[in-house]
């Protein structure tokens, strides 16, 4: 693994973790190692606040009511933040977890929508997370809306998008304007590299800050206990991206 890859992983974990402070309960779904590590970092290794639930984990998961409990819990308003990825994400914050091309026999088939078509509606703070930041992944219009960023009035929707974190930058979702605005640039990125690699339009405010980098203590935790905990569910990730072997 490359050192820059590890540095990026550390950065993304800390960026996301800072969005999770002061919440009561953060849940992390399938295929989400970096959000999982971030939640652990925010909560002090899953022992503090916010409470953390990592799907697929036995140690960081207090659910005892079966697979439905995550969704019931979210429906009860007891989950404050969740993460969604997507093969494609567009400027309306739509996410596509189903595939590219014409449904159903698509050119490229992704795994499927998981719980996105529900959780995106009921969890107040949904953080979109997609490392690959190219015009292939961040598109003008997704080929299939697994879960929409916007909803018609009168449709019950206490939840929705909060931000979009990529390997290049952080976008925030502007509730009023109903679009993304560029918030912070990761090391090495410029306003131009973002514009060039983003397939959708977004607001570019006058002040775009640099993404806050991890502290030494955060790095130590990430490569220590957090790495070990995340390796329970994501052994390949822990090994390849954090140099932690399970």
């Amino acid at each position: 693994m490359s050192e820059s890859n590890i540095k990026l992983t550390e950065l993304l974990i800390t960026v996301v973790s800072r969005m999770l402070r002061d919440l009561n309960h953060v849940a992390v779904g399938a295929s989400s190692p970096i959000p999982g590590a971030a939640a652990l970092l925010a909560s002090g290794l899953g022992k503090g606040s916010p409470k953390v639930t990592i799907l697929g984990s036995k140690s960081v998961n207090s659910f005892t009511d079966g697979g439905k409990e995550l969704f019931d819990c979210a429906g009860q308003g007891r989950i404050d933040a969740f993460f969604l990825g997507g093969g494609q994400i567009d400027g309306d914050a739509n996410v596509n977890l189903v595939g590219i091309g014409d449904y159903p026999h698509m050119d490229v088939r992704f795994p499927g929508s998981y719980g996105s078509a529900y959780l995106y509606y009921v969890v107040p703070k949904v953080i979109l997370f997609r490392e690959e930041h190219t015009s292939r992944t961040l598109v003008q219009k997704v080929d299939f809306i697994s879960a929409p960023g916007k909803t018609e009035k009168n449709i019950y929707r206490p939840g929705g998008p909060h931000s979009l974190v990529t390997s290049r930058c952080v976008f925030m979702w502007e509730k009023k304007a109903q679009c993304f605005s560029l918030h912070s640039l990761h090391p090495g990125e410029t306003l131009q590299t973002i514009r060039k690699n983003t397939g959708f339009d977004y607001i570019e405010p006058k002040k775009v800050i640099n993404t806050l980098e991890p502290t030494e203590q955060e790095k130590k935790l990430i490569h220590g206990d957090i790495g070990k905990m995340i390796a329970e569910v994501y052994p390949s990730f822990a090994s390849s991206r954090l140099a932690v072997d399970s």
Partner: protein
Amino acid sequence: MKSLSIKNLLTSLQNLVANIEDGSQIVIPPDYSFVPMEITRALIRKKARDLRLVAAPQTGLQADILIGAGCVSEIEAAAVSLGELGNAPRFTEAIKAKKIELKDSTCPAIHAGLQASEKGIPFMPLRGIIGSDILKYRNDWKISENPFKKISNDSILLLPAIHPDYAIFHAPYADREGNIWIGRRRELALMSHAAKKTYVSVEEVRDTNLLDNEETAANALPSLYINGITICKKGSWPLGLSDLYDADRNHLQKYASQARSKSDFSKYLESYVFV
């Protein structure tokens, strides 16, 4: 007096899968929850056909191998994936090649459909989903006005009951009464309640009664819901099983790579299924 002990439920793996007719709808657990891989291999060996799978609510290896072996005509799932090992190759290929019907869903919709059957009701409402393209392709789902609405035009999705013919899973053990230890994997109870019949493989039978002790009773799926039990050591392999054994990562990697081509997948079946 007939005895209700486990003896009436125990059968061979071969006899157990013989009960599952071609064309049946079968609900299967997610990859982290007690997947019946040995039953799956036995289904392939008996050349099961036209199975209609319902993932509760997502699946991976089990569905991929059944699809690759030509046992499946339809799958309803919120996702099919090998997790960290990437897309499910045989599933992906079958979708492209139009070999199976796919009912794309979302996790809580499958749970809700199963819960409707569990409760004996014809449908269940669910929030969310309106505005997702999933809905476009689900003619069996309906939008209705919320009859208890507090605002006007409060639309809500109604999902029909999912009532599978069979639920199948693999568990650490059965007790002498035929109760199955499921621990906190309560999706297995839901699957079983929703299905008409449930067939289970277990690592072993233990000479105890889970229901005799309030400390262990909550771990039990009562034999009331069980129609057949077979004993298979390492019945979830190469997936893991609770605290008993972890997933065999090397083997899973091998599968993920061999399943990419049809011919290598056939070799995989010859090496690990038709043995």
